[in-house]
């Protein structure tokens, strides 16, 4: 059975592109979220194998969302996906519980590599 993924990003464009990359690699996208709050709620509801998380989102940022998700499920596997310029937040994200960090623009190979490593 393929791995399930929850894609969190406030841009439809980004969610679509990421979903395409992951689906083509055989993953199943079980849900999408466009805010941090929704990301947390969806995680609790769907219990996906993997979460991709944008950092800058309305109402609750990605880092706070990771913190809440890992508080709920310490084994949650989250890969941060954010635009360049946010690298300074890598440490915050990792401390919050993220397992890896991918910088936009996404290289499909880089995304899959990070995802496989986190799942592996």
């Amino acid at each position, binding site marked *: 059975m393929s791995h399930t993924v929850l894609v969190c990003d*406030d*841009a*439809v*464009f*980004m969610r*679509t*592109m990421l979903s*395409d*990359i992951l689906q083509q690699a055989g993953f199943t996208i079980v849900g999408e979220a466009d805010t941090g709050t929704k990301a947390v709620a969806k995680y609790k509801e769907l219990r996906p194998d993997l979460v991709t998380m*944008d950092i*800058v*989102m*309305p109402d609750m940022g990605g880092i706070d969302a990771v913190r809440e998700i890992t508080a709920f499920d310490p084994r949650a596997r989250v890969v941060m996906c*954010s*635009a*360049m*310029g946010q690298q300074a937040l890598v440490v915050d994200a990792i401390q919050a519980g993220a397992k890896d960090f991918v910088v*936009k*623009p*996404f*290289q*499909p190979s880089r995304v899959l590599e990070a995802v496989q490593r986190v799942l592996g």
Partner: protein
Amino acid sequence: MDLSKYVDLFLSEGREHVAELTGALSEMERAPSSVDAIAAAFRAVHSIKGMAAAMGYTVVTERADALESALDAVRRGDEEVTQSLLGHMIEESDALAREIELAVAQPASTPSASEPAIEQQRTRATHVRVRASRLDSLMNLVGEIEIARGRMERELRRVSDDGLSAAFDSASRLLNELREQVIGARMVPVGQVFERFPRLVRETARSLDKEVDFTLDGAEIELDRSILDRIGDPVMHLLRNALDHGIESAPERQRDGKPARGRLTLSAQREAGYVLIRVADDGRGIDRDRVLARAREAGIVTWATTTLDDVELLRVLAHPGFSTASAVTTVSGRGVGLDVVDAAVRMLGGAIEIKTVGGRGTAITLRLPLSVAIVRALVARVGEELFAIPFTHVLETRAIEPPPEALRGGAWLETDMAGVTARVVMLRTLFGLPPRISEQMLGVSVLARGRRAALMVDGFVGQQDVVVKRFDPPRGGASMFAGATVLGDGSPALIVDVNSLI
């Protein structure tokens, strides 16, 4: 991974984010310390940056990145929200909005310098950079082949061979297509040159203490690169004129019952074989009485002239050195007027049109040919020589009764044409040939610089596309010619600069 399927999504969502950004920035104008507005603006720019980077739109990415940094500084409290910072951010968001449209309109020409795009190889494979001079040579060669085709066509009529004619026709069709392609290769969207104007307008408006909403329309309309390069300054001049002399100050506007913020629009549109570039404002309009008074003093119109219609107005304003600026301002300067714009547009084989309504505003339109290199022209004979008259100016050809003074050898005369006094130019006399006057002469009715006139010729040869070869006018002499060309039969012809004759 094929990026093309994401283009529509990028555009629609990019526009949404731009709208959010604009909304957030105007919220910041009202409440500079609104944390929510600052955060919303930051998020919108951030999203645009991420999306643009994913699409490989470097220019958009860099612009968004710069604006994001500025907003980030505000968000972190390192920078205070001042009116000037906000003004700058609004300019930047406008620029960003345009870059998004441009990037989508021509994704491949966006240079990818820094971050590697996912599908950069694809872009590399389908686009190459070509020196402009090489495109010019291609255009010239096409022109030369056109001339050779004309010669071939004449020869063909003599031999009348069906097989040869069919072959000629197909070669001819292919040549037409080739010409279209070569012209197409030289076309670039006007947005490439116009992109700097919103900022310029904002800065100028600020320095003049005027409130102006600036709109740019038709940035995607394409124009020959060599024309576009030459109209940047004239357009800038028109914009400055509109801001300086057209749009009134906010108190003055309110006193006249108009919205405090003036409107200034720069638009481009295609119309038949031309591109129309229009600068329109909702300002006070041009003061005809003042222009008329100056024109009388300067001897540009007679003292008997009591009114100036749009056509006459343009003629006066385009008169070299004419200016109604009563004070030297840092913006427009005195003595630099519409004549400079007019000259630049004429050089390109274009024409200016003006419409102004007192208290309501002014619109100045530059009518430009799509390509400078080839012009459709009427070929006329004067004496033994052939002359090409560009169709930009030709209204009709007709029999005209020359005014009696023609006999006395005047070159520039006047006659009554459909109830209006029109200038009649006796080309024979002008070119130094003895006058040959008959009751009915052949005339080309033209419209140039807003005036109707008739150019009297000895005969018509036909119409054809001519390749313009520019030359420098003889030293000291005012040139009556815009260039030279070689006709189908190999004979040279001068291209008449109609504007200079009117």
